[in-house]
């Protein structure tokens, strides 16, 4: 539908746009932000926010690459790659877990806690890598093999699709998901109803860290490097995707399908503007207008 709406804009590139290859390219391009936006939806639903996801992504790419290039002659590629991914995901989940524990136990505002960890985790990634990109390379070693596998379109899109389905199920069909929505709707009432509020919050931030870690692994493969400066501003893109998809920053309102629509809206828009060779600075201005328009339209319809 969006493709039709934007077709006058995309007239030059509309032929390319509708090709299957281009459509799957869009999906692949939005997957990294999309995966973060899924978990961001959980966080925002509880009335929180997570600004640290871009930095956690950087930590994850850096750790993945560092482990992969640690030794050049590895016998078992599979085990080595699995260990690299496990390390990156464990560190990312741990960073998210710390966010959650600090937010839930010290009762500091999520904005402040994750702002601090956005700075701190970025510092950690830069310190670990001595501020340098870690190139994965294009040779025939284990690192290059990892990159070839995990930059594969079907793996990237498949990961996004699988996580979307999983998190949609968790949010709408499990007690945990209902707790997430209940806490965002009215945290005090949740407390009076005996909900495990601290535990739910901790898991939500751990989930968000973990998903940024998954995105980081895919980023390392996509870009053939571990980059401690990666992911700057991704937290805002993920928040924008959730908001366009109908998630309220006040908590309590939002859904996974909505966030997927929000993610695709941004992805399709970016793709069309690029196919028409529109300046990337103009692209940012258009995005700004789209965010406001999307939320304004939802407000109107929810008020009636």
């Amino acid at each position, binding site marked *: 539908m969006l493709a039709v709406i934007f077709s006058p804009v995309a007239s030059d590139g509309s032929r390319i746009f509708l090709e299957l290859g281009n459509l799957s390219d869009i999906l692949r391009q939005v997957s990294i932000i999309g995966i973060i936006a899924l978990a961001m939806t959980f966080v925002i639903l509880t009335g929180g926010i997570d600004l640290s996801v871009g930095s956690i992504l950087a930590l994850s790419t850096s750790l993945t690459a560092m482990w992969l290039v640690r030794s050049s002659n590895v016998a078992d590629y599979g085990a080595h790659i699995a260990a690299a991914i496990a390390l990156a995901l464990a560190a990312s989940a741990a960073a998210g877990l710390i966010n959650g524990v600090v937010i839930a136990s010290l009762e500091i505002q999520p904005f402040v806690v994750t702002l601090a960890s956005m700075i701190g985790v970025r510092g950690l990634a830069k310190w670990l890598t001595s501020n340098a990109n870690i190139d994965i390379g294009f040779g025939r070693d284990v690192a290059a093999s990892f990159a070839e596998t995990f930059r594969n379109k079907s793996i990237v899109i498949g990961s996004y699709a699988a996580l979307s389905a999983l998190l949609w199920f968790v949010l709408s069909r499990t*007690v945990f998901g209902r707790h997430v929505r*209940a806490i965002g709707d*009215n945290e005090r009432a949740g407390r009076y109803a005996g909900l495990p509020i601290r535990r739910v919050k901790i898991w939500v931030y751990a989930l968000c860290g973990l998903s940024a870690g998954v995105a980081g692994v895919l980023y390392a493969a996509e870009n053939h490097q571990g980059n401690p400066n990666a992911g700057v501003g991704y937290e805002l893109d993920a928040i924008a995707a959730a908001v366009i998809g109908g998630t309220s920053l006040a908590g309590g309102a939002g859904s996974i399908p909505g966030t997927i629509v929000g993610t695709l809206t941004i992805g399709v828009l970016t793709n069309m503007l690029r196919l028409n060779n529109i300046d990337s600075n103009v692209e940012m201005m258009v995005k700004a207008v789209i965010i406001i328009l999307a939320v304004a339209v939802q407000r109107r319809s929810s008020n009636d």
Partner: protein
Amino acid sequence: MRPILFAENLRKHYGGVHALRNGCFDLRAGEIHALIGENGAGKSTLARIIAGATRPDGGRILIDGQEVSFAGPVDAQRRGVAIVFQELDLFPHLSVAENVVIGNARFRSGPFAGARAMEAFCGPYLQLSGLSVNPRRLAGDLSVAQSQLLALARALSMEPRVLLMDEPTSALFDDAAEHLFAVIGGLKSRGMAIVYVSHKMEEIFRISDRITVLRDGATIGTSATAETNLNEIVAMMAGRSLEEVARHAATTRGAVVLSVSGLTTAKLTDVSFDLHRGEVLGVAGLVGAGRTELGKALFGIDRLSAGTIRLNGGVIRPRSPRQAIAAGIGLVPEDRKGEGLMMRMSVLDNSVMAVQSRLHGSGLIRRQRELDAVKPVLNGLSLRFGSYGSPVGNLSGGNQQKVLLARWLLADPQVLFLDDPTRGIDIGAKQDVYRIIRELAAMGKGIIFVSSELPELLRCSDRILVMKDGRVAAIVDASGASQEAIIAAATLVRPTAPQDHDAR
């Protein structure tokens, strides 16, 4: 006499629910006009439309014979209509004076509103509303009764000709309500037209000049108060006549289920009592006497500095509502909007909120199992609602309260603390609450029933615990007690404690 305000055929629906189908109303200068009806009859909706806070779907409003259409409350204020809402909407972190001037078009100042200018402006209105506090105090530090008066002062500062009050006494004890009536009488004699929305028949018959009854979203009729009587009005409200309910016959008392001794928190001092199985223990006292705080202490919200709680003989020390619930204590909070319900979530979600782990061990929601559990309970409460999936926020106050009660009926605690469960709900819903209390007691539960209305406490309770300044002032047998004796215990300084120099 030409009405100052005239409304006809006002309509409003939320989702599939018609909150108002045919709202008609006329108002004269210098009268107190009561607006009554059962839960969901459309009183509050009608009042909100007249005050410009809600936009009607259809119908018209005339002021001085001219048709008006309000863009919002500020627009209504400009035309001389002000409202004091049922749910107080004050800014707790702003001072009393700031609360009066904020958003007030009549208070003009530069960008820097000086404290002295604000205080000079709000002084006369604070006096008019009878609120004698330092205007620099924070609104959040005021008692419920004082907050009510502050909201009134704010409305008066708009210099309205029409003042709407939505259940102003629902949280007030008798003495504070008396004070409010005197203030309202003063306003009336100054020629102000007052719309008074309330459930309390006694006060409506005492202070109003005319009564308009709504039922199922439509105006049934308007009568001069002097020419009608209680039975007539109740019949109009209900479409049936009032059945007198006899006093709750004392059930046979079982063993002690809850035993509290020396309970002390920041707000309570040395509270001790026993609660038996099958017993309803009423709790009376002025607002701020520690009734709500007693619930918070038992429910693990406020920290105990001393004292013990025994449930079935075993000492418990809940540190959170979660632990209290696990031990077998339930609490229906006084503030159902702020502490009770998730307004955007569905009737079903809200009903099962406290029993999810019992219904779904593995963590997956099994909808059929939930429906099977919830249906009989909601039917037993005669709840009126669109569907299990509709948001609780779309229901009327009384039906919301029933959803909250359903949550605790499902949770099936051994001791249930009901904090003013009939606050702001109509006669029909109140009867349902009384019936549920009796049924729970008959099932052997221990019930603690807090109320601001003495007649219902006397009727439903076996014994009444009277609180004053965070202490137990008296525990009396309800069958032999009089209202006067309870009010005396709640308000008088006992001669045995002359050294009590509490500044309040």
